[in-house]
């Protein structure tokens, strides 16, 4: 079959998420620097701005009553943050230089050794960690917990954090970004205004920073509006993770490859799993797989459940108990998918939303923090007397700092690695090793990627091998959504744009792909098409649907998961 999800695009009008400011002046809210996204990138930017403003009272005054504001769509910073994660501390050390040391920052300690396994159904073959996976000196963290910590630091330096606030539209006029319009609250399922309807507001600022993370809603709109897309389409992986209380502590980090993914190029299954100790009594484990996979029955949530039935993991989890679950996409395009520029008049892009993730090393958090810090410094420069943040090229120094610093260098070195795995596991692995050894100088050609939704689909009966949930080791999607803390209000408009009448294969693709059981294959039409059933209140806003042919937009502020340990 040559059905492709990309043939059924979502109902989104061009430029729908960009508009001009419309609130009268006395109703609009003015801040100095507006940061969209309360994650590591946005908060690092806010912290650095706070530090710089301490030393520049003239600028602080120029920025007004609210010099720095951070909009966060979750209940609080951290509610929507999820990652493995093993973090390189260098960006945190630089950010907090002279103020805090790593001891003051909540982490689960340094990595004390690592093991990489190549799995088959029955065995685990230990292999030497590939050069990309050297984590000595890195720290295991919960990025959700780190987010809460960074938010406190930012607030202490004067940032106003506005939780449960969604940036719905980018405000653009006179060729520059003025700020954002926030989302309405209190609408019913049909869009009608409920008794406590509260319309969104225009928030205007001298500079707007988009640090929305994966599938950044306004980032996508900004890349379109300002022609900033990179040479290759962006692609994503989907990660599903759980946190477990365990009986026996784990003392080293674990990565696995191979089973339950299939090696042949035609399936295009790229990914693996991780298990990271969180102190003496918890572990974080997750499965990551590329959303360019071709089998309609591939479900990363179920792959994670299947993984846990392997001897190696059963042993690890024996006597334990699942305490958290979550899912999120990871930006995977690397260097070739980076935007042409990380800024535009009045606008700066930071963090994962700007594509700054290194998939082969599974690192992105410290790039996010570093980019946030560099963005703050560039913003302060652009606000000095004689300068302006609204001219074309105002943030060229930020671009330069990113590309020529360690962030850009790292990404360049691995720029072809992900795409090498198009050739399957073995060829890909060999290519990847060659790339690492030559620090990216080999191969001399560039490997290209297609957008996730453009992959042709096939069916292999893979779903038959997923384990039936037993409620102790393996779990179904709905109880997992519950464990994410998701209590999204039912009576609100659907935030998911997706074509509702699609071929059965596409409906099945989405239904399996989604870790939160949002999509179901509905009634059969006579034309080979089915109706796609959507339950938006299950959505944990992982973003997979955007990668695969739909378009996630933010629901009402405060909706979605309430992660604390992920």
């Amino acid at each position: 079959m040559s059905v492709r999800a990309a043939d059924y695009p979502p109902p989104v009008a061009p430029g729908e998420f960009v508009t001009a400011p419309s609130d009268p002046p006395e109703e609009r809210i003015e801040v100095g620097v507006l940061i969209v996204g309360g994650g590591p990138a946005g908060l690092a930017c806010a912290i650095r701005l706070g530090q710089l403003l301490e030393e520049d009272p003239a600028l602080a005054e120029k920025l007004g009553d609210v010099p720095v504001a951070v909009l966060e769509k979750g209940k609080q910073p951290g509610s929507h943050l999820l990652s493995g994660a093993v973090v390189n501390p260098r960006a945190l050390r630089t950010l907090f230089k002279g103020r805090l040391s790593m001891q003051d920052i909540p982490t689960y300690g340094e990595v004390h050794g690592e093991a990489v396994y190549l799995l088959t159904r029955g065995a685990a073959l230990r292999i030497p960690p590939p050069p990309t996976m050297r984590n000595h000196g890195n720290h295991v963290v919960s990025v959700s917990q780190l987010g809460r910590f960074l938010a406190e630091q930012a607030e202490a330096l004067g940032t106003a954090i506005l939780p449960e606030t969604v940036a719905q539209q980018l405000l653009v006029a006179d060729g520059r970004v003025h700020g954002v319009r926030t989302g309405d609250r209190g609408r019913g399922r049909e869009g009608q205004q409920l008794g406590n309807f509260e319309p969104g507001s225009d928030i205007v600022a001298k500079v707007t920073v988009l640090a929305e993370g994966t599938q950044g809603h306004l980032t996508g709109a900004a890349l379109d509006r300002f022609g900033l897309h990179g040479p290759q389409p962006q692609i994503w992986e989907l990660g599903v993770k759980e946190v477990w209380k365990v009986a026996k502590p784990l003392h080293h980090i674990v990565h696995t490859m191979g089973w339950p993914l299939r090696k042949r190029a035609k399936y295009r299954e790229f990914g693996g799993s991780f298990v990271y100790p969180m102190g003496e009594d918890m572990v974080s484990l997750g499965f990551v797989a590329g959303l360019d996979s071709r089998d309609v029955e591939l479900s990363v949530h179920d792959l994670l459940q299947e993984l846990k039935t392997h001897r190696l993991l059963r042993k690890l989890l024996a006597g334990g108990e699942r305490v958290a679950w979550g899912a999120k996409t990871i930006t995977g395009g690397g260097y070739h998918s980076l935007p042409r520029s990380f800024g535009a008049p009045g606008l700066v892009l930071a963090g994962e939303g700007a594509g700054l993730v290194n998939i082969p090393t599974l690192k992105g958090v410290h790039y996010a923090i570093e980019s946030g810090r560099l963005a703050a410094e560039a913003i302060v420069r652009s606000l000095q007397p004689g300068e302006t943040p609204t001219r074309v090229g105002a943030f060229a120094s930020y671009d330069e700092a990113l590309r020529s610093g360690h962030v850009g260098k790292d990404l360049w070195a691995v720029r072809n690695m992900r795409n090498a795995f198009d050739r399957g596991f073995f060829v890909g692995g060999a290519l990847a090793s060659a790339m690492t050894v030559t620090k990216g100088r080999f191969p001399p050609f560039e490997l290209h990627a297609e957008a996730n939704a453009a992959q042709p689909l096939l069916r292999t009966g893979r779903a038959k091998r997923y384990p039936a949930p037993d409620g102790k080791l393996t779990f179904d999607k709905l109880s997992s959504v519950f464990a994410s803390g998701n209590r999204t209000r039912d009576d609100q408009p659907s935030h998911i744009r997706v074509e509702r009448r699609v071929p059965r294969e596409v409906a099945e693709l989405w239904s399996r792909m989604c870790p939160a059981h949002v999509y179901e294959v509905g009634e059969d039409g006579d034309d080979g098409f089915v109706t796609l059933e959507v339950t938006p209140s299950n959505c944990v806003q992982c973003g997979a649907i955007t990668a695969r042919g739909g378009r996630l937009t933010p629901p009402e502020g405060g909706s979605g998961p309430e992660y604390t340990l992920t």
Partner: protein
Amino acid sequence: MKIAVCVKQVPDATAARRIDAGTKRLDRSGEGALNAFDTNAVEEALRLKEAQGGEVVVLSLGPERALDTLRKALAMGADRAVLVSDEAAAGSDLVATSYALAKAIEREDADLVLFGQQSSDSDGAVLFAAVAERLGAPLISQVAELTVTGVAATGKRQTEYGYDVIEVPLPAVIAVSDSINEPRYPSLKGIMSAKSKPQEIVALAELGVEAARAGEAGSRTEVLSLAPPPTRGDTIKVEDDGAAAQKLLDYLVEKRLV
């Protein structure tokens, strides 16, 4: 008109709520939220202020973290916040809590004291009646509709038998039911200006609450132990071959449910 609204910070109702096995008290270390039922009380107070002018003060008894919750009420539009926060108050039951809260409310000399219907963490709809007693004020509970003039309040009280209409002279204590209104979302301006509204933290001694009447010492109930609820036992599962309905009826009769 001066309106005092009593609110509570409750643990966020996510899947991780638990009772601490050591202290046998609700583990409140997670992030807190404004008790949903109290938002109705704050909303009602704001509507009265918008119609008749005056001041809305929100009060709470809790750890310093509870200031976050009071700020949410300020973001909705309340004018001032008072937090009674004192380590000595930890472990207070109804007797101790109502005593301390009444002392804090007395300081305000309010015309109207509003409460929400109940709190989502302990599910008791009891605090307001205890406070009314200590204040020596008339009480209407479960109010689904409230009208206030300068000297009296009339409430439509929801009972098992329908609605009573009750009138009380001011000052009075009113507990509103969750059907009385739809609480507003705080506006962005409200959220940003909340921080700069007056917020006061008061210790028990400042209120004149003696140590013997506070916390566990001042409480008259205790928790002895915790247990998981009795397991249900095995499921009796039958396939329907036409006789299942009868089998179910026999089961219900045997259990005296019909």
